[in-house]
């Protein structure tokens, strides 16, 4: 079915497959190894809200007088009335009534239950109001133009390379290609949808042909063809099939749980399915587009938040048996302008909201400091400042995922901020 709204269009995913267990079977051509049997190691999902999500509308300082003065009511979360938001405890400033968007019901529950941590005023240390530069910096794990110019790889690629135990990884993508975070990590598999299986077109004769003509081919295309054939084989072989050999559509743990998540459901289901196929999935990246709300934000944002909230909670419940080994980090390239524009929208800003969901997360708490919204506190007098560097959040997530300190080259030049303490201990159970 064709998506009908811009805000759900770019739902892409990338999934890294890695294995850290015994019983590895090597896959010819790729140098890939994957685990047989119950290979459920730690799983990290990096979710990017593309377009610059308005953190101030997702978690509003709802009764802050400067905020109320700067924005029309439809671009703030209300404290009273039928559309009032969810008042949260352990906010960054107890003098202010912080409220989650009214459509974020499931996120509010996950927060209250202690699984979800919120990091307001998080983002990129450099003042970048360009989508494409900000995304590049975040994917490369840097925070200034000079470092970006020097960088030739994504932070996830450097992290995976440092994982001595992980033999290899693949990537899976709905939008066509692995995200820039994997740049420099060749073993990437992109999968948009597993509904129709994942075979070579025209199997089996064409698979044989392709194996032959790509076997010795030089260059990037030759390597891409060989990697694709190996990855297709790996995934397709593991897909459950009916008597006629047709792939069986994925059945989430709870029927219909993803239904209200729109197109955001598709990549989440692919990740959940691959996680359950026990092919050694260890890292996944998921994109959720449409957050660039320059106009008509109230209605669009409601839909986006509902999909985000429903989708994340469906995914969380779908993978319930492995909660203690699951971490999801939610990021965006920047927040949006403190003052709304006259198109009932908001333009590009600075600080936004990051979220971390996981079984070992010390949730139910907001982390990091709150810079405030007085004119003197705003970045350049116009935007919520960035108090927490996104690399601080991701560093703590990686330390927990890896079970030890993160190598310095993952975020080159990053000295680190005060530890937030997002996890109960920096070590997830490994298998």
């Amino acid at each position, binding site marked *: 079915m064709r*998506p009908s*709204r*811009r*805000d759900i*269009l*770019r739902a892409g995913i990338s999934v890294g497959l890695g294995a850290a267990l015994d019983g590895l079977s090597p896959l010819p051509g790729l140098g890939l190894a994957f685990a047989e049997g119950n290979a459920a190691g730690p799983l990290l999902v990096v979710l990017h809200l*593309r377009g610059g999500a308005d953190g101030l509308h997702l978690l509003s300082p709802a009764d802050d007088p400067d905020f109320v003065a700067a924005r029309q009511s439809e671009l703030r979360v209300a404290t009273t009335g039928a559309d009032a938001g969810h008042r949260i405890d352990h906010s960054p400033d107890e003098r202010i009534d912080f409220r989650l968007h009214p459509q974020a019901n499931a996120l509010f529950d996950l927060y209250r239950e202690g699984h979800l941590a919120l990091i307001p005023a998080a983002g990129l240390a*450099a*003042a*970048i*109001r*360009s*989508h*494409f*530069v900000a995304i590049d910096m975040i994917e490369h794990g840097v925070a200034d*133009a000079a470092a970006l110019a020097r960088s030739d790889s994504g932070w996830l690629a450097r992290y995976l390379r440092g994982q001595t135990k992980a033999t290899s990884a693949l*990537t899976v*993508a709905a939008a*066509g*290609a*692995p995200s820039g975070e994997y*740049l420099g990590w060749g073993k*990437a*598999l*992109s999968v*948009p949808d597993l509904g129709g299986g*994942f075979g070579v*077109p*025209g199997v089996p*004769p*064409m698979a*044989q*042909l*392709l*194996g*032959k*003509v*790509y076997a010795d*081919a030089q260059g*990037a*295309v*030759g390597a*891409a063809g060989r*990697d*694709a054939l190996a*990855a*297709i084989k790996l995934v397709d072989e593991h897909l459950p099939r009916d008597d006629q050999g047709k792939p069986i559509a994925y059945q989430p743990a709870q029927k219909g749980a993803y239904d209200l998540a729109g197109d955001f459901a598709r990549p989440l289901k692919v990740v959940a399915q691959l996680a359950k196929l026990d092919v050694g999935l260890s890292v996944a990246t998921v994109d959720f*587009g*449409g957050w*660039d709300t*320059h*106009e008509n934000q109230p209605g669009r944002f409601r839909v986006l938040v509902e999909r985000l909230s429903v989708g994340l909670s469906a995914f969380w419940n779908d993978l319930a048996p492995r909660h203690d080994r699951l971490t999801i980090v939610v990021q965006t390239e920047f927040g949006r302008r403190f003052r*709304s*524009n*006259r*198109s009932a*929208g908001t*333009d*590009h800003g600075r600080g936004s909201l990051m979220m971390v969901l996981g079984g070992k997360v010390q949730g139910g708490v907001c982390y990091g400091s709150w810079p405030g919204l007085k004119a003197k506190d705003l970045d*350049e007098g116009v935007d919520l400042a960035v108090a927490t560097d996104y690399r601080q959040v991701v560093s703590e997530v990686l330390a927990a995922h890896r079970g030890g300190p993160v190598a310095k080259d993952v975020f080159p030049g990053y000295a680190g901020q005060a530890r937030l303490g997002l996890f109960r201990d920096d070590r997830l159970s490994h298998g």
Partner: protein
Amino acid sequence: MAQRWDAAMVAAALGRAGFGGSPDEVTRVASIGWEDWVEEQLRPTDGVDSDCQRRLRQLKLRIKYNAAEKWSGVDEMRPLKTLDQPIESIWPLITKRAEMDGAERRRPRDEVIAATILRACYSRWGLREALVGFWHDHFNVDAYGSEQVAVALPSYDRDVIRAHALGNFRGFLEAVATSAAMLYYLSNHSSRAGAANENYARELFELHTLGRDAYFNDRYDRWRDVPGALRGAPEGYIDQDVYEAARALTGWTVEDGTNIDAQRKLPETGRFVYVESWHDGYQKRVLAREFDAFQPAMADGRKVLDLVAEHPARFLCTKLCRRFIGGKVGHDTLAAAIETWTRNRARPDQIARVMRVILTSKDFAQGAGAKLRRPLNLAAAFVRGVGLDVAPTEGLANTLAGAGQRLFGWPTPMGLPDDPRMFIGTNAMRQRWALLLGLAENWWGTGVFDATHAMGAPSPHLAVERFLTGLLGRADPTLTASILSGLGMPESVSVGLQGAPDTQKKLARIAAACGMTPAFQAA
């Protein structure tokens, strides 16, 4: 100084400068010389593109929807009707939305998609088609994200992109800025004095003209600190330039029925209109130039376009060189392109002159085989190379999308990237293979491919050689052997009897196999 190239060289060149060529075209170009082909292509006229025009007239595209209270159901093969229509003739699809199914509103977009595929496969003006594709990426709009953009797409494609693809950049920029498609896509239609909408203004600087490397983000509001600013020629822009340009462009909007005040309402035509009372008339400063308060209608916005159009020589020439050369872009080629761009700023054929420099450069000749084909190029070059008769369908368009190229459906304003990594991921490779096999085997109702008319019932060996020569300009013996062995076909035995359905199917599969090889993935 005419360059004489062999068929393989010409086939690769046609693949980069256009969408490939038929074996006859390759022979012709090898004979007249590359420079003559380029000269021919820089002056395209529709009148002599009769095969493509005929196919456009004859093409029927399915439309299907169910009956509802206000309309009856439709399931028909309908000719393309919106491509020649002025925007006001099809804007009623928006204003009378309650009276028809949504498929009718998407129809203008789907017709442009079908026409784009058809032209890629059959137009003799391959360079124009390639440039049209380049500019659609550069001035990207997403016709899947908004109904207004879908309805405005025929006019955007025809009056904005095609009309200026080989023309003058400053004129191009204003055509884009005043198009309903862009005004809706980047929200400028709703921008008002007071708190302007910055969406279009930011991408005007970052994506359309100066480029992201010219963004001095760390200087935010200190315009005097931008190099060159005090001489009135800043090397880049700052956030405050974006804010000010947004103010300058307030009031540039679309006749879409919006109320202006209690008494006045805009007509509903989809055409551009300037609304004075929505414009922020006070003084501004953009790119270190002062704008006086209360200038005549549209003067502020036009001055912004004048200023940004002064800049983009390096950014745009780099982008054009990367797209068309494929391989290494040397300093001399880039410098010559920039010099040509700059010297011809006022000329109506500015872009054509730059393309002449790029396509006749040493780097272009040396870039053969270095450019990964994007999915549309892959499909069209296959169609041309093996001689398929294709009528585009939704299934074909969806497979192009699966391979990474959803035509007119890239959601972010950066446009579909030129980066080859976008198109060789696991799934992208899988879909590239499916694209060629599906075309050859008629998976999506695009037409039966019957090569027996042209070649009878040859031996598999001969068939592979013929198809490889059509696609690549030559048949490498190692590759031929590898394909035959991969297909498990004995070398010398005939593929069957001429006219037998099995023969036709085998030949189609052999053609697809030749297209699926690594060698054909790049040009």
